[in-house]
């Protein structure tokens, strides 16, 4: 107990002895449900494909070969670079990036608006933001499909207004997928930004204004750096799941516009099941996301060190 008294100056110190115990449940959950499956994926990606789904326990690089090289339909042509999957990755990155940008453009002002209300009203606004998300994602996506179809309410309404002469064709397009992603993940942007905006000290804005900073300057130099952690957290929370989404491409894109998520799903559930390939695509995706995040984290620490 004497040690406890000694470190009392650091308020967290009283938990020091139990730190290992506190983190144990997390380790168990993460280890069992995250690390173990990821390791399995890694192993599976280097195994041989079994006919009609499953794996044969023989080492093979066929999955990665299929990803990067095109050997023609019968597999006996000289290998060329396979652009198909790179295109799918590029399309997914682009779609996810766009969804993140849209979410940011809409989410930031929204979060700022909520954060600047009196505390009593903030709770109400936050509740309103989350209400649509009490409904299952699948149901929301199917509903959106009904809304935007050629003969759906959106088109009927615009036609009735006379704003368009003929229905806008949205369903089964990339734009529809984009709409679905944006709508699905908007709150993941609003909430973290709100969390940082809420802690913002408004005296800073006033001080800046007193020093003759214009509105834009205040936003750029004072507010944005202050809520940056929220923006980054929000962007990661939108970008990463968008990258792996398969409901939106399946339902709104007509299962024609493959994104990474639907490509992987097809390998395990679909017709020409190829588990090692699905695992390999997952590993490649994982590596890309990890590289970006590690790069970002290192950048961040370097900046903080300066």
């Amino acid at each position, binding site marked *: 107990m004497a040690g406890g008294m000694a470190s009392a100056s650091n308020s967290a110190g009283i938990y020091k002895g139990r730190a290992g115990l506190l983190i144990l449940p997390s380790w168990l959950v993460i280890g069992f449900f995250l690390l173990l499956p990821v390791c399995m994926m890694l192993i599976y990606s280097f195994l041989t494909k079994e006919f009609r789904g499953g794996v044969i326990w023989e080492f093979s690089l066929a999955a990665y070969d299929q990803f990067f090289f095109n050997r023609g339909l019968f597999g006996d042509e000289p290998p060329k670079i396979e652009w198909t999957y790179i295109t799918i990755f590029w399309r997914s990155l682009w779609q996810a990036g766009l969804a993140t940008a849209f979410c940011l453009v809409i989410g930031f002002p929204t979060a700022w608006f909520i954060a600047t209300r009196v505390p009593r009203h903030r709770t109400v606004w936050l509740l309103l933001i989350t209400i649509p998300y009490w409904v299952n994602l699948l149901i929301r996506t199917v509903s959106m499909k009904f809304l935007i179809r050629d003969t759906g309410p959106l088109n009927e309404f615009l036609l009735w207004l006379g704003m368009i002469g003929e229905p806008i064709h949205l369903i089964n397009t990339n734009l529809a997928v984009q709409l679905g992603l944006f709508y699905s993940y908007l709150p993941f942007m609003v909430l973290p930004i709100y969390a940082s905006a809420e802690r913002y000290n408004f005296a800073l804005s006033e001080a800046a204004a007193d020093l003759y900073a214009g509105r834009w300057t205040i936003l750029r130099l004072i507010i944005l750096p202050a809520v940056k952690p929220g923006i980054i957290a929000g962007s990661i929370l939108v970008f990463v799941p968008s990258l792996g989404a398969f409901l939106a491409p399946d339902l709104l894109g007509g299962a024609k516009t493959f994104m990474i998520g639907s490509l992987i799903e097809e390998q395990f559930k679909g017709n*020409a099941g190829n588990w090692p390939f699905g695992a390999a695509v997952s590993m490649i995706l994982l590596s890309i996301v990890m590289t970006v995040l590690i790069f970002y984290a290192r950048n961040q620490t370097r900046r903080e060190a300066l």
Partner: protein
Amino acid sequence: MKTLLKCAVAAIALTGFSGLAQAEGKLSIYHWFEYIPQELLDKFAKEYDVEVTMDTFDSNEAMLAALKAGKMGSYDVSVPGDYMVEIMADEGLLDTFEPSELSNYGNIQPQWLDVSFDPGRKSSIPYQWGSTSFSVNRDKFKGDINTTKLLFEPPAELSGKINVLDTQGELLTLASIHLGIPQCTSDREQLKALNKLVQDAKTHWASFGSDTAKDVLVSGDADLGMIWSGFSAKARNEGANIEYAYPKEGYIVWMDNVVLLKDAPNRENALKFMNFLLEPENAAAVTNFAQYTAGVTGTEPHLSDEVKNSPESNPPAQPVGVFVQACPQEVQVLYDAIWTNLKK
């Protein structure tokens, strides 16, 4: 504390025992979506005092993938199509039974008794049979619909308004029929032609979807939809002004079958259920719901007029439909490659 402990032990014991008691009366079905009326399941549950649970799939291949991915041992029966029965038997996923174990075995129509995909009907009983072709919105297209050209080389007015089934076996078979090449061909030129055909056709297709095949026709998202006969009849009954095509090049016939799965946790109930489905009245109930045709004798008195007279259930004498074949592995990988190529 002690009382609490005792209570907990008692509770665990109780749930354990009641669990055991219930387990005797359970049946776990792995079925196609929208293919059996809930009332029929309720009827079986009531008659035999069995708790019925059902999961659904949307293609033969998805079902096979799920079973192979570790679902074996959790289901008692499934409902694969003809060629898939053969594949599942080859993969060792099916259990066998003796005809004597089913008192209604004699109700099976003679032509479905000894079938190529399950010689001697050792693991399966007929569920329903029907055909796969496509339906066309008659408000949007007035011309002759009885040709596979509409699906694979569509005219401008149908281009971009086509939904195809997301099922490899049926889509590639129908494409082969269109080209007039044999199924499971290993001829390189023919396979290249098949690959090119579906690649080109894809530019005219709006979507791939099986569980949505009916809805897109009803809603008008698609003006032409590759579809199963009964599903087309249902779409028509729901208000779509569509006509089901019997293409002169040919079309697909299929039979779905109830199979007894290996390691079925409730084998007895599974057999009771299969026997139950061979009852003409119950087979007719499925037909009235799904709008296909039963493989059981004596269903006629129980059928609704709607089903009896539907064009989907009454194919013309000519052309005749063909069954999808299960290809050997070295050929199937080529078809898989074409499919992956198409979907990517």
